[in-house]
């Protein structure tokens, strides 16, 4: 199976481990990801917030390239996914015809292609005993007339995938609350209040880690825990996984350790305590 792949700017930088783990999982599933030739930035929220025509044109350039490839376009970044999907809907609506390919996030792709079943067969190291909450954030589900998601207040795809990997997804009420990612650098005070609440609720639910599918959520949640702990007086040390990393780990991919090293909150301590990676003090597998 082949598909077009649009990594987006974050996956070439701050979300490198999302790119690496998504590609690794695709390889294990026998899916060939063809990076969109000469792709450019989707415009993200900065174009959308300030210039409607620019937002549409930046996304449309990539959709035009995808059209020449003639394959479904997989977009792991939730922000890119939202921009490209909104533009695709608008353009095919204006033209009155289909663009001939679908814009999909990796979770949609796994379920629509039926590969989620194959995933389960490939599990080598079930993530038994790992308690997590799945966090979807905003743009994977909202606005529903762009994403097409039916359960936009209570999505379950990520929970199902994580369960297939043998981990325990814990129900909680904050799956689609905003983490404030777009204000991360500009109004850090607001963002720390939003992420602090998410940590608090995740821990209250009994989670040992959070799982995400968005590079902005991941970096926003992962990188400021020390700062939030200092300011709030609560100690937060909650690993924030990309769902592709947990799939890669359960499938026994040898690079998993390399992905985890890139995190701010090192998840290897937690994983070692579950016997899921080799710990420094705990050498048993």
């Amino acid at each position, binding site marked *: 199976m082949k598909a077009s792949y649009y990594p987006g700017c974050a996956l070439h930088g701050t979300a*490198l481990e999302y790119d690496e783990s998504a590609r690794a999982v695709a390889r294990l599933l026998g899916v060939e990801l063809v990076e969109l030739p000469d792709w450019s930035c989707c415009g993200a929220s900065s*174009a959308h*917030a*300030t210039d409607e025509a620019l937002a549409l*044109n*930046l996304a449309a350039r990539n959709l035009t390239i995808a059209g020449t490839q003639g394959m479904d376009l997989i977009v792991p970044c939730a922000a890119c996914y939202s921009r490209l999907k909104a533009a695709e809907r608008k353009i095919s609506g204006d033209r009155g015809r289909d663009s001939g390919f679908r814009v999909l996030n990796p979770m949609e792709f796994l379920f629509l292609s039926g590969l989620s079943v194959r995933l389960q067969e490939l599990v080598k190291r079930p993530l038994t005993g790992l308690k997590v909450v799945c966090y979807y954030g905003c743009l994977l589900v909202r606005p529903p007339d762009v994403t097409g998601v039916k359960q936009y207040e209570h999505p379950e795809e990520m929970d199902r995938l994580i369960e297939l990997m043998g981990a325990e997804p814990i129900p909680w009420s904050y799956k689609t609350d*905003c983490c404030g990612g777009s*204000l991360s650098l500009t*109004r850090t005070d607001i963002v720390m209040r939003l992420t602090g609440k998410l940590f608090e609720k995740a821990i209250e639910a009994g989670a040992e880690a959070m799982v995400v599918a968005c590079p902005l959520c991941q970096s926003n949640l992962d990188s400021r825990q020390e700062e939030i702990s200092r300011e709030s007086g609560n100690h937060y040390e909650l690993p924030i996984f990309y769902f592709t990393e947990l799939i890669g780990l359960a499938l026994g991919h040898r690079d998993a350790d390399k992905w985890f090293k890139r*995190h701010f909150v090192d998840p290897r301590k937690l994983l070692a305590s579950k016997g899921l990676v080799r710990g420094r003090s705990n050498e048993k597998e």
Partner: protein
Amino acid sequence: MSDISSILPSGSPPDFSSLAEIANVQDCFQCQKCSAGCPVAFAMDYKPNQVIQMVSLGMKDRLLACNTIWICASCYTCSTRCPNEIDIAGVMDWLRRTALKENVPVAEKGVSFFHAAFLDSVRTHGRVHELSMMAHYKMKTRRYFDDMKLGWRMFTRGKLRIFPSNIKRKKEVAGLFTGPGP
């Protein structure tokens, strides 16, 4: 949900009086579901339900100058939950873009500086180069030392590229920038 941009022909943004009509703000019965669900309402000078009422009352100048339109995180919770299908986040977008177009002093300068630095990077490289974009943002805001440690830790984790990942047809992307921008 009625999305403003899908109703309009491309390239003809509505003026303020037609905004009220297109966005159906008259349908609002002030249930305040938008403000109750808004994650950042606590930091706004006008809450989302107030913004909708102000649009319907024609209070353009106050709206273009308020901080709400810049604090809005575009999470779409309000638009998704509105029982009258008013695209509240779309109204925020329109107000923000209009404030820029009409050169209204921006209430949250940091936010518009960030958008400017981000889009400059896209215009130059075709993609965002995070390191130079952050430097540019810091020059504009003069908040040089905020998040220095964070940046360094990103760098040591291989998450900040020194060199931009340029595309081949940079001019093609630069040519898409026709508006005045933030």
